[in-house]
């Protein structure tokens, strides 16, 4: 087969997959919407406010419940935000050294 | 038949370094003949070929193509001649593609792609089906005994083979006029003779051939019909060899 036809077939396939992504996303959302709700009834009662993404520290576990700047502060991967950060090192206790 | 009337081509006109490459040339090139433009380098041969081949426009003068089934959409009925100097760029290109085949001094083949691709190259933008001109290209390679090189890259070919590829490429769009600029400059005598033999064959197939050359093998060849001698942009002598 001609190379150009092969390429066009390939691009068409890629394009189709690409265009199917939003459809797949919608479908997946609809499928999940139903069963997600019911088995989380117990959790729903808790009125959770935060995503469980980073459990390393309190302000990363519950950023909504912490001080306004906390989410931006001591996060180990955060780029230092405040001028004082260039002078003050985090506290290294015996326990933390591990 | 190609008819040139008072053709002049100047470069850098109006500036101090103005120079006239073709100076007031009036000439008739007969169909199905081999015409040779003879003259030293710088005599305007190449410029004249470029003008005839619709590659450049003359500064003044007119060029007529007669009896050529050129692909001009507005060609009126009964009008056998096309005046190409005043045509817009697009039609000029169409005429160039369908009427002329070019063979260059340096062969001008594209490196890195196969012999077959090179031969088909002029046909790509015409919008013809690839399978159609591919058949033609293979037939041409066969004709020039290049079939076994079809899938090879250009770099691997010898000088004579390159020359034959260049000729095959010039023929891919089935032109009625072949234009060759110093085709034997990079060939030894044997290959030059071979080239002339091919040109003779093309003439036998009804093609008109126009060659610019200062190689005796070309202009002393018994095959040619007409010699036009040029010097300093002008035609100094034009004689028939028959």
């Amino acid at each position, binding site marked *: 087969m001609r190379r*150009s036809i092969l390429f066009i077939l390939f691009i068409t396939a890629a394009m189709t997959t690409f265009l199917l992504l939003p459809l797949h*996303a919608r479908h997946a959302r609809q499928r999940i919407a139903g069963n997600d709700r019911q088995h989380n009834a117990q959790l729903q009662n808790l009125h959770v406010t935060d995503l469980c993404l980073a*459990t390393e520290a309190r302000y990363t576990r519950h950023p909504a419940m912490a001080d306004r700047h906390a989410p931006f502060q001591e996060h180990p991967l955060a780029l230092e935000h405040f001028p004082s950060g260039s002078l003050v090192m985090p506290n290294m206790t015996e326990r933390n050294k591990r | 038949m190609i008819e040139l009337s008072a053709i002049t081509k100047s470069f850098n006109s109006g500036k101090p370094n103005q120079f006239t490459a073709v100076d007031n040339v009036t000439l008739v090139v007969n169909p199905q003949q081999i015409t040779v433009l003879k003259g030293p380098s710088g005599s305007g041969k190449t410029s004249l070929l470029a003008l005839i081949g619709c590659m450049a426009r003359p500064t003044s003068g007119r060029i007529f193509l007669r009896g050529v089934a050129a692909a001009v959409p507005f060609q009126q009925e009964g009008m056998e001649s096309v005046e190409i100097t005043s045509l817009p760029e*697009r039609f000029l290109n169409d005429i160039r593609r369908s009427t002329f085949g070019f063979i260059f001094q340096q062969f001008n083949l594209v490196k890195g792609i196969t012999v077959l691709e090179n031969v088909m190259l002029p046909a*790509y933008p015409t*919008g013809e*089906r690839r399978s159609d001109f591919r058949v033609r290209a293979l037939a041409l390679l066969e004709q020039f005994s290049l079939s076994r090189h079809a899938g090879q890259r250009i770099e691997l070919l010898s000088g004579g083979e390159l020359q034959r590829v260049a000729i095959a490429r010039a023929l891919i769009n089935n032109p009625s006029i072949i234009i060759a600029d110093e085709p034997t400059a990079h060939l030894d005598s044997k290959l030059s003779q071979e080239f002339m033999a091919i040109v003779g064959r093309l003439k036998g197939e009804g093609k008109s051939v126009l060659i610019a050359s200062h190689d005796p093998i070309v202009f002393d060849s018994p095959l040619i019909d007409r010699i036009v001698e040029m010097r300093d942009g002008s035609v100094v002598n034009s004689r028939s060899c028959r």
Partner: protein
Amino acid sequence: MKRSLERHLNILEFTLASLLRRRGKNLSLLAMYLLVVFILASLLFFVAALKREAAIILNDAPDMIVQRLMAGRQDLVPVRYAAEIAQIRGVAAVRPRYWGYYYDTLNGANYTIMASDDPALPPESAAIGSGVAKARNLKVGDLLPLTSYNRAPVMLEIHSIFSSSADLIAADTILMPPADFQKLFNFPNSQATDLAVSVRNPQELPTVAAKIASQYPDSRPILKREIQRTYQSIFDWRGGMTLMVLTSALLSFIIFAWDKGTGLSAEERKEIGILKSIGWETSDVLLLKFWEGIVISLTAFLLGVVLAYGHVFFLSAPLFAQALKGWSVLYPSFQLVPVVDLYQITVLFFLTVVPYTAATIIPCWRAATIDPDTAMRY
């Protein structure tokens, strides 16, 4: 119509043959391009999906949380506040929340402990997130030993384990009856961690918040809207930081591509001259260059986006996991619900495909407009 289609196909054919000539160079270019698009698109998908999850969770969140501040730090709220706040006009309900953190000395993980008065949860039992279950290797019916404030062991029977689809909410959560919660932390009886307040009319929320703040100067009301804003800004900030780093990568790629495009080599220039001399028009040459740009950039864009989708939504973004994990011991193995933000994808398209294609075509413009007869004079 048919002829013009054939012309495109033919020129594309030559483009491909021409690209394959410099196979190594063009493939590495494609790979690099693909990687840039892949990472950018992964990030866009990831952030968009997390934003959506946060938005859904926050929909169920209480209208307002009232915390109490003591010496500038969050402190326990007296439960009597709840009854008094409930008297404020417009307040529908006030619920004290009991929750806290538990540091597991065995594996260094932080758990979130919440008290639940759900009657389905019998005394001395717990419902745990799948992350806890994995960390402690627990099944339903097993006993979870915790150490209370005075080192006394507290044994809880695992009543249920949340399915991993709830990981994004509760992977690290241990839910227990209030009595056990009290026992574990020696939690004062008359106090709660904070108060969840719901109001009848969301419009009145700021008014209610102002009333609470004036009635209890030591309180800090946090509105749902503020939480939402915090979340948006966290994701925008984190995503933005990464995006900034990546944008510089993208920029350097563009500079590279530009350099490659503009530094039209003598060979390429000659090639264009040859094409012109054998009957190609300027537009044919530009079409060739257009296809050259499209073949590389569109392939990279489409494949990059599709791969990124798979990476984020089918493989749960392993590339970003490290960044999110940080120092945490527990990491939720969440499955994100796919979200495609068409606007962002369009922006990505215009940031990647268009500049590259332009960088391929524009430098050839001048080379392509030369007179065909110049090729005769090489």
